[in-house]
C-alpha cells in the first residue's frame, strides 16, 4: 500500500507524473467542482419552486395521498449505499487493491443506481395511477420538475459509468481515466446530497406542510 505524497491529487493516485500533468488534473477537478456548483443552483431553484407550490394542489391529490414512504426508504438505502460503493471503488483504485475490486465496486454502484431508478419509476407509476400526474396541479408540476430531474442525473451517471468502464477496458486505466473516475465519484456523491434534500424537503416537508 502506498500513501499519497504531496505530489498527488488528494483522493486519487496518479503515480509519479510531472507537475504539469498534475496541474492539468487539478484544473479539471476544479472545473468540475465549479460545474457542480452551477448545477446545484438549478436544483436549489427547483427546491424553491417546490416550496412555493406545496399548497398549489388545486384540489388534486396531495403528499398524503401520493407519497409512499416505504418505497422512499428503499430508494434512499439503495442510493446511499451506492455512494459508499463508489467510495470503495475510489479507495481500491487509490491504494492499488487490484482492478478486480475496482470493477466489483463500480458494478455494484451501477446495479444500485439501476435499482434506485427502477423503484423511482415504479413510484411515479403508482402516483400516476392515483391521479398524481404533473398536468393535475402546480404542486405536482413542481414535484415532477424536481424529483425526475434528479432521476435524470442518476440515469446520466449510470450511462457515464458504463462508458467509463468500457474506457477502462479500451483505453486502459490511464491517468486520464483515473481522473475521470474521480470526477464521476464527485458527481455521484453530489447526487446523494441532492437526494437528502429531496427526501427531507420534498417528501417530509410535503407531508408536514402540504
Amino acid at each position, binding site marked *: 500500500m502506498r500513501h499519497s505524497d504531496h505530489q498527488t491529487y488528494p483522493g486519487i493516485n496518479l503515480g509519479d507524473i510531472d507537475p504539469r500533468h498534475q496541474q492539468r488534473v487539478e484544473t479539471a477537478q476544479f472545473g468540475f467542482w*465549479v460545474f457542480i456548483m452551477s448545477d446545484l443552483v438549478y436544483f436549489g431553484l427547483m427546491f424553491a419552486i417546490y416550496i412555493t407550490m406545496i399548497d398549489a394542489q388545486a384540489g388534486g391529490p396531495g403528499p398524503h395521498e401520493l407519497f409512499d414512504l416505504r418505497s422512499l426508504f428503499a430508494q434512499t438505502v439503495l442510493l446511499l449505499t451506492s455512494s459508499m460503493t463508489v467510495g470503495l471503488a475510489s479507495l481500491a483504485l487509490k491504494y492499488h487493491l487490484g482492478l478486480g475490486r475496482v470493477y466489483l465496486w463500480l458494478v455494484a454502484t451501477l446495479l444500485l443506481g439501476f435499482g434506485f431508478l427502477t423503484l423511482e419509476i415504479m413510484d411515479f407509476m403508482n402516483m400516476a395511477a392515483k391521479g398524481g400526474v404533473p398536468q393535475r396541479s402546480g404542486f405536482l408540476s413542481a414535484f415532477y420538475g424536481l424529483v425526475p430531474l434528479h432521476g435524470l442525473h442518476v440515469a446520466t451517471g449510470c450511462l457515464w459509468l458504463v462508458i467509463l468502464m468500457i474506457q477502462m477496458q479500451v483505453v486502459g486505466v490511464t491517468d486520464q481515466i483515473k481522473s475521470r473516475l474521480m470526477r464521476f465519484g464527485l458527481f455521484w456523491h453530489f447526487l446523494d446530497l441532492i437526494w437528502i434534500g429531496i427526501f427531507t424537503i420534498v417528501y417530509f416537508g410535503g407531508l408536514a406542510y402540504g
Partner: protein
Amino acid sequence: MSSVESTVFGRLTWDALPIAALIKNPGTNEIVANAAGAILVLGAAVVLFILSYFKLWGPLWRDWLTSTDHKKLGIMYIVFALVMLARGVLEGVVMRAQQAAGPGDGFLEAGHFAQLFSTHGTIMIFFVAVPFVVGFINFIMPLQIGARDVAFPVMNQISLGLTVSGGMMLMVSLVVGEFSTGGWTAYPPYTGAAFNPGVGPDYWIWAIVVSGVGTTLSGINFAVTIYKMRAPGMGFMRLPMFCWTVICSSILIIFAMPPLGVAALLLAADRYLDFHFFTNDLGGNMMNYANLFWLFGHPEVYLLVLPAYGIYSEVFATFSAKKLYGYVSLVIATMSIAVLSFTVWLHHFFTMGQSALINAVFGVATMLIAIPTGVKVYDWMATMYRGRIRLSVPMLYGIGFLILFVIGGLSGVILANPTIDFQVHNTLFLVAHFHNVLLPGVLFAMLAGVNYWFPKAFGFRLDERWGRISVALWVVGFLFTFMPLYFVGLMGMPRRSFSWEDPSFHPYMIVAVIGALIILLALLSVLVQLYVSIRDRARNLVPVGDPWDGRTLEWSISAPPPAYNYAVLPQVRDRDAFAEAKESGSAYLKPTGYDDIELPKNTSIGFLLCVLSGVWMFALVWWIWWLALGVTVLMLLIVIVWSFDTETEIVIPAAQIKQEHEAWLDLVARTPAVDRDDEAAPANLGYARPDMEGAT
C-alpha cells in the same frame, strides 16, 4: 394535414414561409417581413458564393471552424456578434420608423411590431452583447494572465457552437414561421400555450436554453482559467483590471445563468407537456417566472457591463500613459457590484404586488450600486488627470462613456425609487434608461475594445479617421434616438406600443427616428472603417505588437500572436507587468532556453454540435419528434465517441519556437521605436519608445 405528414413534418407546413402571407394578403407589413427574410437569405447566399468563389472552404474549416485556439474562437464570437448587431440595429430603425409614422397605426401590424421588439431585445442581449463580451474575454484574458489557452479549449469551442446555433434559430424564425411576440423577457401566461399556441415562444425558449448552456460553460471555463492558469508571479492583486472584471463576470455567469435555464425550461414544460408552473389555472404562479427571470436578468446586465468597465480601465490607463488610479478600490468596487447585483432583481417588478417594505429594501439595494460605480468613474477620471493623454478612438469612446453613462446611471437611481417607478414603469423612460446604460456602457466599450486590440489580433491598426467619424456618429445617433425617449416616457408614452394617438408625442418620435438613421450610419461607418483599414493595411502594420505603449502582457508579444502565445511563459514581478518590464529594460530579452509546447488539436466536435443542436431546436419548435429524438441520440453518441479520443494535443518542438521567436526578436531590434506623437502615423510599427514619466 394527414397523419403521415404530421408525423414526418410535425406542425411545419408551407404556410410557415412569410411568402405565403404575402401572396394571401399583400401589404406593407408583409413586404417588410419578406424583405427581412430576403436580406437574410441573400446575405447567406452571398457569403456562400464568396467562400466558394475564393475557394475558402478549406481554410475556413481547417483554420477557423475546427480551431480550439482561444484567440480564433474569440474573433469568431465577435464576428458573430457584429452580424447579429446589424440585424438588431435594423430592427431598431424599423421600430423607430413605425412609431414616427405619426399618430395612428403606422405601417406594421401589431403582431409584427411585437416580434420586432422581442427579437431586437433577445438579439441585442443574448446574441450581440453576450458574444461580444465573451469574445473579448476569450481573446484577451488568457493573453493578459500569461497563459497559452483557456482551461478547457474544446469546451470553449462547444460554447461558441451552442451560442451560434441559438442565434441561428432567431435567423431561421425570420424565414420559417414567426418569433415570439412576448418581448425578450417572455412573461407567461402570455407566452404560455393557452394564449400563444404558435411556434414563436418555442423559438425563444430553445434559443435561450441552448445558448445559455454555451454561456454557462464559458463562465466555468474563464473562472477556472483565471484561478488555475496564471503565469508565475501573477498574484491576484497583480491581475490586469480587465481580468478582475472577468472573474466577477464569470462568477455571475455561473450563478445567474441557471435561473434563466430553469425559467425557460419550466415554461417549455408548461407549453409542451401541459405542466402548471406559470399557467393561470390549477395552481400555476407566474410570479415564480418573474422572480426566476430577473434573478438571472439583473446579474446579466452586470456580467455584460463589468468586462466593459474592464476594457475602459485598460483604455484609460494606456492612453493616459499612467498606471490605473485606485487599482485596489476598483477591485473592491467590481466585487461589490458583482455581489450587489444579486440583491436587486425585484426592482424589475416593483409594481407586481409586493409590500411597500420589500420594494423599499430592493430600492435601497439598487441605489447602493451607484456607490461602487461612482468610485469607478472617479478612478477613471483620476487616471486621466495629468496623464499623457492621446485622444485616440478608444479614448474618445471612453470619454463619451464617462459623460453619457453617468446620465444613464442617474436615471437608474431615479427608477430605483419605487414611488417614481410606479409612475414611469413600462414607459419609454425605462427604454431610454437601459439604452443609455447599455449603449455607452457596453457597446461603446466593445467598439473601443475593437479599436484598441484589433492591431494585436490582426497585426495592423484600424483607420483612425473613420474611427473618429464612427465615434461621432454613435454618440450623436445615441443622443438623438434616446434622449427624446426620456421626455415622451415622462409624458406617459408606453413602451412597446405599435400605435399611439397623442399628437404631442410626434416631434419626439421624429427626432428619435432621425437618431436611429444616424445610428444606422454609425453601423455602416464601422464597416467602412474595417474596409478602409484592410485596404490600407500596409501603412498600418504593427508587427512588433505594441502600438499603444501598452502596459499589460498581451502587448509584449508579436501581432498577431503565435498560436502558443508565449514562447516562454513570462515571469511577473509587478502589476502592469509589461510596463514594468519596459521600464526596467527587461522587455524583449532573449530567453535562455525553450521547451516543447503542447497545444490542443483541432477538432470538429464544436461545429458538429452547433449544427446538430440547431436541427434539434428546429425539430422541437415544429414538433418533429422523431428528428428531435434521433438528433439527441446522435449528439450523445458524438460526445461519447469523442471522449474515447485521448490524443488531444499536438506538440510544437522547441526548435521551431526558438526559430520563430528569435526571428521576431530580430525584427524588434531592427524596428525604430516611435514616440507617442507618432502613434497614428505609418511609422508606428508597434515598437513603443517608453516616455511614461513616473508611469509605474
